[in-house]
């Protein structure tokens, strides 16, 4: 491509870009957060288009996996216990106001799921049990519900650039249908980024669609990130497998090759021991602490946990199998696009963020374990962003039609003749973010060296051009991953302490002076600044 930008204001009204659509709200990403925001916006009266890189219903980590939900009935003692339980783990960066709101909204939305017919189980006393969602079932239902609400879904339609108006407010997006090759433009009053986190193509379950695309687009429109140092979550999986479901490893013994237990190794507190051991030798697991009665229960509870074992001919209860730790980056980490108010607004007008794409520090601080808070955040932030984007868009529509242009486009619009070798850049990026002795355990020297190389990769991408449209999607993914890694490690360098999941070998203690958020951003030049906990708290809540 030789044009300076993929799409400029006039070009898409010509025949060259026939696929132009309009909506009050555009949702980018079709996992739980995107689906909830689309439903909520439609329910608030907006016309909504949802675009997904894959297929809304099968895309993302939730659909493939399933998880717990932070669903706590509104009894003050249970709510208090729920909020208190993770504050220390998260390094005291979370906010009670946000937790309270998420607990309230999650309770409402999960009950809504039950009304829609999600088949929640009933416990021994006949009470419905609503703290666990099986992914395929959940997301199949969400797709059905958002279609019923009138949301138009474009599958296999990754967004590539955001559109902004003359004042810099976001006004839609451009993209491509990767099956037909046709480009599309959606002009919208507001845009919600629900593209998930970034797991750097680590093959963690359902995570390879999560390459930080939304971070990059948001940053190109001027949005900021928050908490990107909390980006080194790793999930346990059988070494040969993608299945990073970790609950059942609570009943595992971790051993060396000869079956000798590794002291201190465990699923939760001992995961760093597993990482340390894996640096020098293989680690094996056996789920031998599960009683015979429990085994059938486990199979019914998480059918996909057993899938790789059954197919590989391994009985995980009686046979040792090698394990690995796959990077889950900001999917399970808590960093993401900075949220500036209760409406899930970003620092750019007209742009909202929800789910893993948005920072989850507000309810988790610098750490999350399993999926429960993540699921709760996806459906709450999705709900709020959808509602507020609909209201914002409604007020806008009174104005005249805006002149818009596409912003960003790193990787395919430099005008240079150099071609990108995406696969090489992916490997080079993974070599900086996968190793446990770079990312799981961080130190100043390692971070500094990695950053130098990541900055060069960025320069390489910004000075290259793709050969043809087939490479657009992968090239943007590559640019997103490199950008994400630079925000991650720049933030990690700035947090000179150990807090939440951020483990800094040079500063192994938590430092009371650093109980603040780290805001980051920038493309060619990455910057990091601190923000006090209060600053991120509250702006006025707009209600319908």
């Amino acid at each position: 491509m030789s044009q300076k930008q993929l799409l400029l204001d006039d070009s898409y009204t010509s025949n060259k870009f026939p696929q132009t659509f309009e909506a009050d709200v555009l949702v980018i990403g079709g996992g739980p957060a995107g689906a909830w925001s689309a439903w909520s916006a439609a329910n608030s009266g907006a016309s909504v288009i949802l675009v997904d890189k894959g297929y809304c219903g099968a895309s993302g980590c939730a659909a493939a996996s399933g998880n717990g939900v932070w669903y706590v009935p509104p009894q003050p003692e249970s709510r208090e216990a729920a909020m208190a339980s993770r504050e220390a783990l998260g390094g005291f960066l979370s906010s009670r106001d946000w937790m309270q709101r998420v607990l309230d909204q999650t309770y409402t939305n999960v009950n809504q799921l039950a009304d829609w017919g999600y088949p929640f189980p009933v416990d021994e006393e006949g009470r419905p049990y609503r703290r666990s969602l099986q992914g395929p079932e959940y997301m199949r239902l969400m797709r059905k519900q958002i279609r019923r609400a009138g949301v138009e879904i474009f599958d296999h339609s990754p967004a590539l650039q955001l559109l902004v108006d003359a004042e810099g407010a976001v006004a839609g997006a451009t993209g491509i249908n990767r099956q037909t090759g046709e480009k599309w433009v959606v002009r919208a009053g507001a845009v919600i980024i629900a593209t998930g986190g970034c797991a750097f193509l680590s093959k963690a379950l359902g995570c390879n669609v999560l390459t930080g695309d939304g971070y990059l687009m948001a940053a190109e429109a001027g949005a900021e990130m928050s908490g990107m140092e909390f980006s080194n979550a790793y999930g346990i999986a059988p070494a040969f497998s993608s299945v990073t479901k970790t609950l059942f490893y609570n009943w595992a013994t971790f051993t060396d090759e000869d079956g000798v237990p590794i002291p201190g190794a465990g699923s939760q507190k001992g995961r760093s021991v597993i990482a340390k051991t894996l640096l020098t030798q293989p680690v094996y697991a056996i789920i031998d602490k599960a009683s015979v009665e429990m085994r059938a229960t486990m199979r019914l509870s998480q059918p996909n946990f057993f899938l790789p074992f059954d197919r590989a001919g391994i009985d995980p209860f009686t046979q040792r199998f090698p394990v690995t730790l796959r990077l889950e980056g900001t999917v399970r980490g808590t960093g993401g696009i900075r949220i500036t108010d209760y409406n899930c607004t970003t620092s750019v007008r007209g742009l909202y963020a929800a789910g893993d794409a948005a920072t989850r520090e507000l309810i988790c601080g610098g750490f999350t374990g399993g999926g429960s808070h993540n699921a709760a955040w996806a459906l709450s932030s999705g709900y709020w962003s959808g509602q507020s984007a609909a209201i914002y868009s409604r007020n806008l529509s009174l104005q005249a039609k805006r002149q818009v242009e596409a912003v960003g486009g790193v990787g395919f619009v430099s005008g240079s003749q150099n071609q990108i070798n995406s696969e090489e850049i992916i490997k080079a990026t993974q070599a900086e973010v996968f190793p446990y002795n770079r990312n799981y355990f961080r130190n100043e020297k390692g971070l500094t060296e990695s950053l130098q190389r990541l900055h060069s990769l960025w320069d390489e991408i910004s000075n290259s051009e793709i050969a043809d449209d087939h490479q657009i999607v992968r090239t943007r993914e590559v640019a997103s991953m490199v950008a994400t890694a630079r925000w991650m490690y720049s933030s990690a360098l700035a947090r000179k302490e150990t807090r939440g999941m951020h483990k800094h070998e040079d500063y192994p203690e938590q430092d009371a002076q650093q109980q603040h958020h780290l805001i980051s951003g920038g493309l060619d030049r990455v910057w990091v600044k601190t923000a006090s906990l209060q600053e991120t708290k509250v702006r006025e809540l707009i209600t319908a």
Partner: protein
Amino acid sequence: MIELVSDSRCIECNICVKVCPTNVFDKVVNAPPTIARQSDCQTCFMCELYCPVDALYVAPDVDPLVGINEQSLEVTELLGSYRKNIGWGKSLTTTAKEDPTYQLLKTMK
């Protein structure tokens, strides 16, 4: 990784082409879809769940394998095993209703 589209079972509905989150399959006129981009497969098993005739097999390994064949998968009853286990398909009931996670979590406390 996706290893098999069974010619004998496939009804050419192309649902797998539609639902695969990483766009691994290509539609072919009057023939079963092809596995056009195996290296993009993220081993999420979603295609198997949506295949109405259990014509797909996703091996548990994240790297490609050799020697996968339909006959042996039929013998070991692995074709469609995931769909059966979650209770999707004709005359089956979703097992989400029986999800006993709460019993397991109780034993952790």
